[in-house]
Every structure is written in C-alpha cells, then in structure tokens.
C-alpha cells in the first residue's frame, strides 16, 4: 500500500480523493452506500448566507458523457449549517471543507465570520467564485482577477484555516485568476467548476433546463480540467486541486500527473455513491504497479513532448 497522504497548507489529508461540492450533499445522505471516513475530504454543498430554494425544475439533463445542471445553489443557509451539520462533522474522521457562495464580498465575509465564531472541526473553506448558475452568485468574481484578489484577501484576514479558491473554466485565462488568488493569500486553488452549456430537445423544441444555461460536468469535460490544472501547475506555487470528469483511479492519477495535489470527484457520485472508495483502491494499485510509495510523487510528473 502506497502512502496517499496529502498536505495542503498546514492540513494533512489521508488521501487525495475528495468529493466535490454539490455532488455529495452535506456528506450525510448515503451512509448505507459509502463510508465517508474513507474519503480524503468532503467538500460540502455551497452554503449561502440565507437558505435558498434553488432554481425551478427542470434542473438537470444528460449530455454525451456528461450532464448539465442548474441547481441554483439550493441550500440550507449558513445558520442551519452551523447548528445542524457542524456537530455531525465532529463525529467524522474525514476532513470537512465547507464550500461558500455569496452575492458580494460582504456575504462571503459574513458567512465565514459566522462559522469562525463557533468552534468546529472543519479543515477549511472552498470559495465558489465560479458557479455559472446564479446570476449574481458567482461568475462575476471568477472571471475577474481584481475581484478574485480582493475577495481572497478579505477572507484571508478572517481565517487561519485553508482557503481554496475554486476557479471557473469559463474564462479566457484561468492562470491569471489563479495567480491573483495565490498572491492574495489563498492556500490552494481548485479547478474546474462546470462549463457553461445548454441542452435542447429537438422534438419539443424546448430548452431542457429551466435557466436555459447550466453547468456541464462529467467525463466530457476531463480534457478541459486537465488542461486547466496543467496550466495552473506551471505558473502557481500553491497546491492545485483537480476537478472534472474523474470516474476512475486512472483519471485521478492523470490529474495528479498534470499537477494536482488532490482531486475531487463530482458527477460520478450520482451514479456510484461509493465510487470514491474504488478510486482510492485503484489509485493504490496504479502506484504499486509503477513502484511508487507516495501518491504525491505523481504531482506534476506528466512527461510532455515539447
């Protein structure tokens, strides 16, 4: 068995296989189907200041090797998160990363201050600056270097815990956004969030998603995620967490080879809630086959031709 331990900032994780925000609920939904304590970390669903009902249906649709979603950040709000979920997380041995979404900087700050004001075991925050679903809930931060920097800086002032800025692929230059986050004090960046997409039913001539546009995820976007991670790795000094279309241990290894310190599994959980355990196993096998003792040896080791 290889050593799968990963370190980001001053937190260490048992393994680099995490579950992605919005694809595993609050981590408490499927106890019969997956032992969450096996996971490197759970990134919980984006939490906003107020509870949100989310978008009207239809919210999801399949696409070739992928799916499109427009959930609209349906969530219980930070108050309920603090009251009901943080105590549950005390009982888990896996690390919890809380994903936060806000309409403006003030909202992010407020949410984080509320969580920081109570005692809890959470390891850190992932900051959703890239959710393409909600008009004012993401996009704006994620495409702009300055706003990303300002937000990161503000949040850095509030917490000593991990801050992971989650980057959007829907930009001309993801690296410059990543660099802004790094300079402003982020401990890591994660990439990628979903890619803007649309689906139409040719028979009914209707859009398949209520909000017309949604976020594309799943194996279809793996090449896009890999390119983003590799580009970020070449320029950033902080760890990168790879996301997008991971469904096998090989996929996870590819992301690590591209430069990811850890990865998050999203859409695949919908099909196999326990898939992360298989991914951990097969990553282990893969490492053994290549005589590696540490998964961290993979990071950034892809050999390129040019």
């Amino acid at each position: 068995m290889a050593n799968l331990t990963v370190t980001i900032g001053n937190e260490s994780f048992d393994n680099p296989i995490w579950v992605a925000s919005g694809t595993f609920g609050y981590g408490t939904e499927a106890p019969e189907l997956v032992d969450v304590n096996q996971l490197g970390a759970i990134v919980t669903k984006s939490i906003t200041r107020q509870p949100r009902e989310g978008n009207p249906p239809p919210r999801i649709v399949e696409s070739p090797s992928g799916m499109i979603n427009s959930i609209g950040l349906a969530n219980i709000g930070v108050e309920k998160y603090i009251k009901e979920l943080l105590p549950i997380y005390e009982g888990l041995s896996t690390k919890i990363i809380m994903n936060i979404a806000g309409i403006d900087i003030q909202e992010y700050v407020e949410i984080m201050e509320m969580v920081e004001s109570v005692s809890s075991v959470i390891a850190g925050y992932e900051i959703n600056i890239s959710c393409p679903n909600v008009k004012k809930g993401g996009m704006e931060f994620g495409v702009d270097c300055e706003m990303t920097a300002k937000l990161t800086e503000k949040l850095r002032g509030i917490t000593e815990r991990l801050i992971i800025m989650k980057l959007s692929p829907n930009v001309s230059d993801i690296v410059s956004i990543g660099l802004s986050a790094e300079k402003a004090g982020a401990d890591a960046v994660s990439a990628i969030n979903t890619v803007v997409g649309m689906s139409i039913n040719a028979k009914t001539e209707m859009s398949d998603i209520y909000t017309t546009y949604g976020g594309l995820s799943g194996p279809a976007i793996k090449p896009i995620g890999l390119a983003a991670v590799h580009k970020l790795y070449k320029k950033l000094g902080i760890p990168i967490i790879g996301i997008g279309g991971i469904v096998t241990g090989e996929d996870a290894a590819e992301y690590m080879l591209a430069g990811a310190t850890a990865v998050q599994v999203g859409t695949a959980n919908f099909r196999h809630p326990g898939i992360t355990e298989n991914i951990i196993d097969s990553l282990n096998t893969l490492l053994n086959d290549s005589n590696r003792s540490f998964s961290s040896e993979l990071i950034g080791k892809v050999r390129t031709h040019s």
Partner: protein
Amino acid sequence: MIIERARINSNRQLAHQIWEMQFEAPQIATAYKGSGQFINILARDDWNHPLRRPMSIASAEGGCVSIIYKLFGGMTKVLSKKISGETVELLGPLGNTFSNWNNGSYPILIGGGVGLAPMLNLKQACEHNKIDHTIIIGARSGNEHFIDHDPTKNIYLTTDDGSIGEKGTVMGPLEGLIKENTNAVLYACGPEPMLKAVKEFAMKNNMNAQLSVESYMGCGIGLCQGCVIQRKNSEIQSHSYHEKYSLVCMDGPVYQATEVDFG
C-alpha cells in the same frame, strides 16, 4: 438503499414498445416497502450515459424484482437488448409508497402509459389483501395494452383511438365509477397531463388522490438536488429542506394531489 448487481431472469416484450424485465435481486426485494417505490438502473458500464435510469418496481416477491418499461431513448433501448443471464446494477428500493389504500376506502387505480407499472403492483397488493378496487389503464392505442379490458373484473382500458376498451382518456370511466363508489380514493401514475386531470377531478369532487410523479433524476438518493417538483403547500417533509420544492427521489415519487403544483 442497496446497490445490488442483479441477474436478469427474463426480458420480454409485452406490447408495442413496452417491455418487462425481471431481476434476481433478493436484497432489494426484501427491503421493498410497497407500491410506488422505484429502482435506479445502470444498464451500461461505459460513461456515454453517465446517469442511472429510474424505473418503478412493478413487482417484488420471492427475491425477484420486475419493471415494466417503455422504449424511449438510449438506455431503454440498451435494456431491451439484454438477455437473461446478463446482469445490471440496481440501486434501490428508493422513494416512498402509496398509502391508505387498505384502510376501508375504495381504491381506484389509474395508470397511463408505463405509469401502469406501480398500479399493477398496487393492484396485486389489493388482491393479496382482499380489498375491492378498480383499475383503469390508458394508452394511445390498443397495441400498447397487454391486459384485457374486462369491466366485470373491474378492469377498464381506454385508448385515444378507441381501438381497445373505451375511446378517450382514463377520465371517461372515472366519472361513472365514483358515482358507484362514494368512498373512492384515487391512485394515479402516468404522464403529467393525466395526473393534472386526475388532480382537478379529485379537487372538484372533493376526493383524496395520490399521484406518483416523474422528474429527471441525477442520483435518486438526495445527493444532486436535481429531481425537484414544485410544491403547492409547504408541509416540509423529512428529506427535503425546501419549502417550495420537493425532492421526488426522497419525498416522492408519491404525493397527495393537493401537494403538487403542476404550474
């Protein structure tokens, strides 16, 4: 909630584009709670279609589970090509059940299209519990029916084109039936226009009705928040933290007609 790799015992065509598949799935059959519940099926190993497909449980007994499915698109076509002996991965049993059909009222079961799967199941339960009931099954045309029209046995078929049973929708026989059965309660599953009509009928006649609704599902187990329907009133149920929306996979698929907002 169990994931079970299930052997296919049989897979046969019942009517035009309507198939029945039976699986050996002892764990799911045992955990099964009653009519209305569904399974989420994974028919293929590749990721071209990443999502499972929800299908109502048409029967669950003797360690076996069956579904009745209609050829629709990619995955149902794949299902129809499967042969006995092959396996598929099932996740289930999922969702809630029809209720109160065995508390003295007169159940009228209404199934449209493949919505008849849970209705056949409920019919079986009624028979097993010796509860008088009627079933009405609607289809577009006679070639989609695989049960005989037999009002003497309280089985009514309807077709849009009149080729079998009564011409028109399921609402036709219903009118007559509720005059005879003043303590009738409606149980329905089928396409949205049918459910809407049943709902309006129940409201107008001040009756109880339970509807099994469909929605596009990402996971079937509460992870994705994709499967919501709009709710009329806001009795929040255990699994949905929403007021306006309800997760069909956890709090449904069966709802009181009054609860559902068809928009």
